């Protein structure tokens, strides 16, 4: 094979004489691989694969595929019905249920029922905003805070204990309990931060270890006298006094003031990262520690302070979970909010407002998944699979770009930032 210059060059660029119309420019920009497009397409791809899983895991529908060649319409209709109902439930359970809304309008239902989906979504999202921000801000400073879980657990413990042990006037009690959670998480972040700054001990290792310590400490604590509910024999603590509870909408709605706090904290973190002197330091240290040191910044001090802030955020998330949703300490009170925070930060690309949106998406999937399980009997684990798939696609932007033939524009650099964590 030889190339021939006289023959048409294989990839000569098109002549750009005409101005592109606004629409084509818009479409071009949309289709080039910016991070928003990749995120949206990742969610779409995850839903497609999720649909396949829904069909495969339903034996009734699967049975119809056994005679697919003779009557394909049976299998296809059944699959479509199942998938569309599942995804409709996902939507109805998390955002808006037209039937409940219509019932409220014509007087047969309550407004609480109409607002319940959104309320559930925000309830699940609230703690994730805090733990997500905790991971995101640490990441911007070059630290991989796997310890969000442990920090949130300590936040739960201190917030919860302050919630039932103290007797303070309403309002003040709530603030004190939230501060206890914040300080507990900050302390749990301070340790790995100090170790990293002073001795270089890798924060991934130390925070994972502290996760175990925190979880086991919680398990021990709720069986102790003075903490355990005297009327119970199992591992459950006394209930939080009502003076320390986060004000919520009337029952059965569960959404509470925590979501407002979450939005305020998001704005605060955004300001801290982008507009404060400490934010400048942490971004410089995160991007290039030697250059930050050469410019006179103290890398050790920045790491320590950063982990204090990150831990405080996660601790606040734990306290909000106890004071807003759980009402008492159990071994599972923090659920998985710390680890989900990692994925939320990843999905939000370590940007504060992105993290807020990602947390709401996670909350929506969780809330919708509940209805999906009740209504069509699809296991809640499918939602976990969906969440995992979304994260996989986001973490591998090249894969999404190949599937959709996106222009290689300013690509999502997440792969690189992920690798940097280690």
């Amino acid at each position, binding site marked *: *094979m*030889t*190339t021939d*210059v006289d023959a048409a*060059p*294989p*990839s*000569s*660029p098109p002549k750009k004489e005409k101005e592109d119309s606004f629409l084509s420019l818009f479409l071009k920009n949309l289709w080039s691989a910016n991070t928003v497009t990749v995120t949206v397409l990742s969610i779409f791809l995850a839903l497609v694969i999720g649909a396949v899983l829904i069909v495969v895991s339903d034996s009734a529908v699967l049975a119809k595929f056994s005679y697919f060649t003779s009557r394909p319409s049976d299998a296809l209709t059944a699959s479509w019905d199942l998938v569309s109902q599942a995804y409709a439930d996902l939507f109805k359970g998390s955002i808006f249920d037209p039937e409940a809304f219509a019932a409220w309008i014509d007087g047969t239902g309550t407004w609480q029922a109409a607002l319940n989906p959104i309320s559930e979504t925000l309830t699940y999202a609230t703690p994730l905003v805090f733990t997500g921000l905790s991971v995101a801000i640490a990441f911007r400073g070059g630290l991989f805070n796997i310890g969000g879980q442990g920090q949130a657990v300590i936040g739960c413990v201190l917030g919860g204990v302050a919630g039932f042990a103290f007797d303070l006037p309403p309002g003040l009690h709530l603030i004190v309990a939230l501060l206890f959670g914040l300080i507990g998480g900050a302390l749990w972040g301070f340790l790995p931060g100090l170790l990293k700054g002073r001795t270089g001990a890798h924060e991934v290792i130390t925070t994972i270890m502290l996760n175990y310590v925190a979880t086991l400490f919680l398990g021990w604590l709720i069986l102790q006298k003075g903490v355990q509910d005297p009327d119970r024999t199992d591992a459950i603590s006394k209930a939080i006094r009502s003076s320390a509870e986060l004000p919520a909408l009337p029952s059965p709605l569960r959404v509470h003031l925590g979501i407002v706090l979450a939005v305020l904290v998001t704005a605060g973190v955004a300001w801290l990262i982008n*507009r*404060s*002197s400490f*934010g*400048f*330091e942490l*971004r*410089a240290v995160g*991007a*290039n520690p*030697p*250059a*930050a*040191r*050469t*410019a*006179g*910044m*103290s890398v050790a001090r920045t790491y320590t302070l950063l982990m204090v802030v990150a831990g405080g955020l996660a601790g606040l998330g734990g306290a909000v979970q106890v004071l807003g949703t759980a009402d008492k300490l159990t071994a599972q009170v923090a659920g998985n909010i710390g680890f989900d925070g990692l994925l939320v930060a990843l999905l939000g690309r370590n940007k504060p407002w992105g993290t807020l949106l990602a947390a709401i998406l996670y909350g929506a999937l969780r809330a919708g998944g509940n209805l999906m399980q009740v209504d069509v009997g699809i296991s809640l684990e499918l939602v976990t699979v969906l969440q995992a798939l979304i994260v996989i696609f986001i973490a591998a932007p090249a894969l999404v770009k190949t599937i959709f033939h996106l222009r290689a524009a300013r690509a999502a650099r997440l792969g690189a930032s992920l690798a940097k964590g280690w």
Partner: protein
Amino acid sequence: MLSHQGEIPLRLELRGITKRFGDLVANDHIDITVEPGEVHALLGENGAGKSTLMNQLYGLLQPDEGEILVDGEAKVFRTPRDAIAAGIGMVHQHFMLVPVFTVAENIALGAEDVRGGPLGILDRRRNRRDVLATSEKYGLPVDPDALVENLPVGAQQRVEIVKALTRDVDLLILDEPTAVLTPQETDELLTVMRSLAETGKSIVFITHKLREVKAIADRITVIRRGRTVGVASPDTSEDELAAMMVGREVSLEVSKSPAEPGREVLKISGLIVDDDRGVRAVDRVDLTVRAGEVLGIAGVQGNGQTELVEAIVGLRGIRAGRLELDNESLADMGTKKILRSGVGYIPEDRSHDGVVKEFSVAENLVLDMYDRPPFGNAFKLNPKAVSENAGERVEQFDIRTSSADHAVSTLSGGNQQKVVVAREMSRPLRLMIASQPTRGVDVGSVEFIHNQIIHERDNGTAVLVVSSELDEVVGLADRIAVMYRGRILATVSPDMPREEIGLLMAGITSAPAEEEETE
């Protein structure tokens, strides 16, 4: 693997090579002919399109137009494997070696000698023998059993060259091979290139260093902004070559008036500093830098200059000795305080220590003053002042960028360095430390940076310049301290013959340094 047949000379011709990246034309109809046994220099500034061109020749990129002829026959290289098969080898600027492998393993990598089919075992012994044979044949001493990570840069480069030669190539592309080398290593490399050419191999030598081009090349092709601007012979003067590269007249001489030294600003006495491994790097150094003079430190890299400078700015602890700025001790002061007491610092490794590449130009311009008015305070930043400052500095220091909000990584090396220079010079200074101030910087920017350094001197600042390029030290300095193995061997005048300074840099002090000054 090894060439057992005689050397077959190879004649290479590039015709009308054009490569576009989007709207950018990186190579615009470039024609080059490399004759057998020729050392052909490809000269051009950073970003002129030299590496793009060579990557097409080596099969890493495919040209949009044009053809590559080897011995008159048009070839298409889809991968480096095709290029190697056609007899073309390349040594990259950044070495492609596995640090934890031995030399022999690195050389075998990708073309392993295997006994017993594709799933057989490595024939390490034959591999080792081949390495030794090649090494001996071309006079390139390498130790096949040494681990690459333990080798100095010059030796690693020899490994790369031996690796290319064992692939039986007849044309060797060397991409900026001297950028990382000491003067001695550079001289050795030039000798190796000459002897390779004598055995009939052709060499394409990519560089932007004029002295080396003139010393070694048989013919010089100059590229500017993706186009061939001319073919020159080594007789062409450096000034003419520089003008061809840059597209305008440039002055390679630093023009300056005699210094008017004032008070002693920086006083160093009996300074002892250890390097990262705890080995003594600076050994009882005494130095004085006066206001309004440039003290140059000449020396082959790795003789303690880095540690000396890091100790002055507080980035490295000192073992013993005194460091004083206007009679105030700098020891235990901390980098931030030292910088703020009127010390400007241009670090030797720009991308490692000088800039945060992800940050915008504006942010990098305040990297060490972000929490001081007007740019901010201990609590918050003042984005307006930061961006106003950026506008002024971009103008004043001729930083070529379409917007100060763009990341520094989008700038050329020279312009990144101007960002560092602008940052460090835009506050009142008592002492200015410039370490390798023009490394990896294009010719046009070198002139500008040198003028800025002299300008700072004329304003009464004490200036300390460290450079492994003797030309630079001689051009800038009013006094030269030669550093060797952590010690200052002598302080001499820049008028001293280059050869004598060169001997001092090699640690030879037998000739008494007549012009040594008394402090």
